[in-house]
Structure formats: structure tokens, C-alpha cells
């Protein structure tokens, strides 16, 4: 069986420049590892090692496909031509098609990204599999997965049968990024590039954008002057708001 780790599947919203008319200039920004991707990979490696599964990387868009290969993944699939869309379901449908193409997969791990919150659950929907989101960690117990997640102020441990999609939320940053040796070795590992036509996916954007604008008041009320002056103005404002 295979465990699929999905990585570098979106741009970082922080890379976008929003113009005064609401239009977006990505300034050539490429897809980058998401803030959860390192955690996704760590969980994937743990499940792979414990359960005798091969770990397969899947990436879409313009990112560097070797990112996961430098972190212990033996092979990867890439779909470079991801269409621009506001529809998380379309992104998920493409990812689901890649998972089917990989074949013999019973666990899919993807970052439970704040900026793209519907991709992980809709990927599960597209595969027809159960899903658990907000996952902090997962391991293998006999033929099932034990999944730890945070739900508000409680920690839950769930037992989950496969196949399953897990949306992973990082609780820490990557601790040991690969060195130059691993990065160079990754470039020799296989990356299979797939076209949307290979996947039998027709990308139709069902959510055309009619208009866009910056929020009316997107910025904080900033206090200026000396620290003492700023502090006095701020405290006065908070008292006027009734929160002090």
C-alpha cells in the first residue's frame, strides 16, 4: 500500500500584492511549502515506516517537486498546470485524480491550510473516503490509524480505519531541514509529471470573479508619537470602547 503526502499545492497568500482596485499581482511567486507541509511529511514518514507503506509525494502547480524528495520521499508525482481558481473543490478534484493515478493508496495526508480550508475535506469527498482534520499526529496500530487532534481545549485520540484523508495542522516548525547532500540526492530521484489530460480532469472554473476590492478598513488605527503618548492614546481608546 502507499501513503500519499500532498505538498507545495498553493501559493503563500503573503506573496500577493493587492492593488488599490482589488486586483492581485503575484509578482511571479511560485508555489511554496505550506506551513503544515513539514508536519504532513513527518506524519507520512511515521505511517510509512510503521505500516510498511511506501511514501509517495504529490504536488501541483509551480513548486519545487524535489522538496519532499529531499526529505525522505522516494518518488513523486507533479501536475504543473494547476488552473487559477477560487474553487477549493476543483483543486481537490485534481488532487483526487492524482491519488487514483498513483493507485493502491489507503492514506492521504495534506496540510489543513488556513488559507485553503476546503481542499482537505473536499479531497476526501472526491475520493469518497472519511476524513479527520486538525490532525497533530498519527500512527499505526495493527491495521488502523491512531490519530491525535486538538478540538478547542481538548485533545482527542481517534481510531480510524483506512482508507482515510488526514488534514494535518502543524504544531511546530520544521526542526531539521535537509542539508545540501539530501537536496542534491533528491534531484536524482524520479518525479513523474502529469498533465490534466492524463488524469481525465477538465478544469472548469465554476466561480468566476465579478469584482474585487480591498476591505474598507483593513488597517488598525495606529497611534503615533512618543511611546508615552501612544500608550496614553491607546489606553484612552480602550477605555472608551469599554474593554478596560
Amino acid at each position, binding site marked *: 500500500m502507499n501513503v500519499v503526502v500532498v505538498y507545495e499545492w498553493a501559493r503563500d497568500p*503573503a506573496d500577493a500584492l*493587492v492593488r488599490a482596485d*482589488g486586483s*492581485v499581482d503575484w509578482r511571479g511567486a511560485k508555489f511554496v511549502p505550506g*506551513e503544515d507541509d513539514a508536519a504532513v511529511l513527518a506524519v507520512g514518514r511515521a505511517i510509512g515506516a510503521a505500516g510498511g507503506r511506501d511514501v509517495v509525494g504529490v504536488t501541483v502547480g509551480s513548486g519545487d517537486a524535489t522538496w519532499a524528495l529531499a526529505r525522505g520521499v522516494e518518488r513523486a508525482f507533479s501536475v504543473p498546470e494547476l488552473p487559477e481558481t*477560487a474553487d*477549493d*473543490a476543483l483543486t481537490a478534484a485534481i488532487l483526487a485524480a492524482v491519488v487514483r493515478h498513483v493507485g493502491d493508496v489507503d492514506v492521504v495526508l495534506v496540510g*489543513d491550510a*488556513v*488559507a485553503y*480550508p*476546503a481542499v482537505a*475535506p473536499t*479531497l476526501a*469527498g472526491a475520493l469518497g473516503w*472519511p*476524513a*479527520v*482534520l*486538525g490532525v497533530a499526529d498519527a500512527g499505526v496500530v495493527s491495521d488502523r490509524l491512531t490519530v491525535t*487532534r*486538538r478540538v*478547542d*481545549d*481538548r*485533545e*482527542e*485520540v*481517534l*481510531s480510524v*480505519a483506512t482508507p*482515510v484523508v488526514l*488534514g494535518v*495542522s502543524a504544531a511546530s*516548525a520544521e526542526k531539521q531541514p535537509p542539508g545540501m547532500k539530501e537536496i542534491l540526492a533528491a534531484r536524482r530521484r524520479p518525479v513523474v509529471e502529469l498533465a490534466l489530460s492524463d488524469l481525465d480532469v477538465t478544469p472548469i472554473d*465554476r*466561480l*468566476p*470573479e*465579478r*469584482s*474585487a476590492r*480591498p*476591505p474598507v478598513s*483593513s488597517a*488598525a*488605527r*495606529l*497611534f503615533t508619537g*512618543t*511611546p508615552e*503618548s*501612544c*500608550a*496614553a*492614546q*491607546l*489606553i484612552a481608546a480602550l477605555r472608551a470602547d469599554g*474593554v478596560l
Partner: protein
Amino acid sequence: MTADWVIATDSRRLPAMVHALRGLGGDGVRVLAVGSPALAEVAAGACADSVTWIATDATTPAEARTPDAVRAVLESEPRAVLAASTPAARVLLGAVATALGAPVVPGVLSVVPEADAVLVESSDLGGRRLRTLVAPVPFAGLFAGPDVVPPVGVRPATVERVAAGTPLDVRVEHSASAVGAGVELATAERIVAVGRGLKSKDDLALVRELAERLDAAIACSMPIADDFRWLPSERYVGRSGQQVAPRLYFAVGISGAPQHLDGVRDAKVVVAVNSDPDAPIFRRADYGVVGDLYEVLPALGAALAGGPSTATREEQADE
């Protein structure tokens, strides 16, 4: 008969989602409540026309009831389905959207009917732009608008309990509080949170002093707990940490990474103190001071103590 649906696995933003769907002017707004009897009761008071309730228990999470949820929503002809952006609600929405063949819009703020489509205003790029999308019918969305309080004395909607089918093989083995004794961030009225703008652990004294003056709990961003271990992990606020909803959230030296801001989305008033004027935290904050926290925090302490601040003295001098 068509209906618009709210899928709820907890009470967050439930009345607001019902209110938003009223804007479509359809035949009715229904709530699918997947959870405890208490959730069904809250749903009944959320101004919906009816509530369909799928019960869960201590070992059966809402996600296990996905097939029941899909079946319940598809029995009508939904035009729009909204859910809050919580993990369980998103799982149910993802399955329903796929079954409907519907696109999914994150960050939904409002919906307006237009001919055979729906105009959906949504928040994009972390709230830096608002976009209006033309969504087909049916469509699904994750709601991100502010919550509303239902009017007093509203007549409760009828609650219909659905007989549950065979659940998916997902079960809760163990559930325990993840919060240590004395750490009550989830219910704190005021919080002072500190980030990587702090230069050393010893400097936490500055933060503690401000927190004491504000009668506030102390929290932090992920690196302070995870990388530096200056504060215990249960004080880390963010998507994978504590979700907080204080009346006042003081972010000191916190840049405002998306995963952190996700943990403070329900804070009422956010104050940011940061030396970087371009820090994302200022886009979420209501008030901000661009400055060195090592100068601003003592000044705040003095102002809170009621001593004559420089500003006051300057104003008096002007008079």
C-alpha cells in the same frame, strides 16, 4: 421544495449563517445539527425554519455521521449550503458539496441571489481583499462573517431527529483536557500574548507586568512555546493551539502568521504592538502601536497605573 442549509457541529456562527442564507429569499433555511442534544437546542433558537438533528455520542464523532449528513441534505434540493470553518463541519460540508457536485467557496461573508446564480462575497488572501464571485446553484461555502445574536423571544424551530445509519469507522478512543490547571485562555476576558519580538526569556517579566495591570492571562505565539520553550505549549494561541475569544487581545511582538490569527478570530478588540509597520498583525488589529515593545510596554504600564504620562503633560502644557 428547495431549502438552503446550514451544517453545524457546534454553535459557532450558527445564527449568522442562518441570517446570511435568509438573504437568498428561498423557501426556507434549515439547520443540520450533528452533535449533542444541547447543539440541537441551540440550533432550534437560531431563527431557522427547521432543524434536522443527527445525534453523536462520546465515541462517535460528527465525522462518522458523514453518510447520514449527506443523505439528509440531499433529500431536499439545496441551492446553498454553509458551514463554519471548524474541522468536523468542514468534513461534512466537503462530502455534501461533492455529492451535490457543487463548488466550494472559503471565507463567505454574504450571499445575494442573481437570476440562476448566487453572488457570493468572500474574504480572500487573509482578509486583504474582498471578492464577489458568481456561484452556480447549488454551491457550498465556509462562512467567515461575524456572529450575530438571535433576537430575544424567538420561537424555537421544530427539531426532527434523524435515525442514524451505520457510522463510518471513525471512533473517539480518548478525550481529555489539553489545558493545564490555571490556564484558562479559552474563557479569559483579556489576554496579553507575546511573540518573537521578545529578545530573551527574562524579558517575559515585562509582559507579565502588563498582564497583571490589565488583569489578563498570558499567552504566546507558536515559536515562543515550541522553539524557545519560554512558555508552556498550552499557552500557545493558534490553529493547532488554543482558540481564544477574549474581549481584549494584546499581541506584543507577534507578526501575525495565518495560523496564529486563526486562533484569535473570535477576539473582540485586538491591539498590536510591533516594530514592523508592515506586520500582518496590523491588518487584523483594531488598534496598533508601531514601536519597540521595550519602550511601549513600560509606557503602557505607566498609563494604566494612572501616572501622568508624557501625552497628558504635553496636553496640559498646550493649555
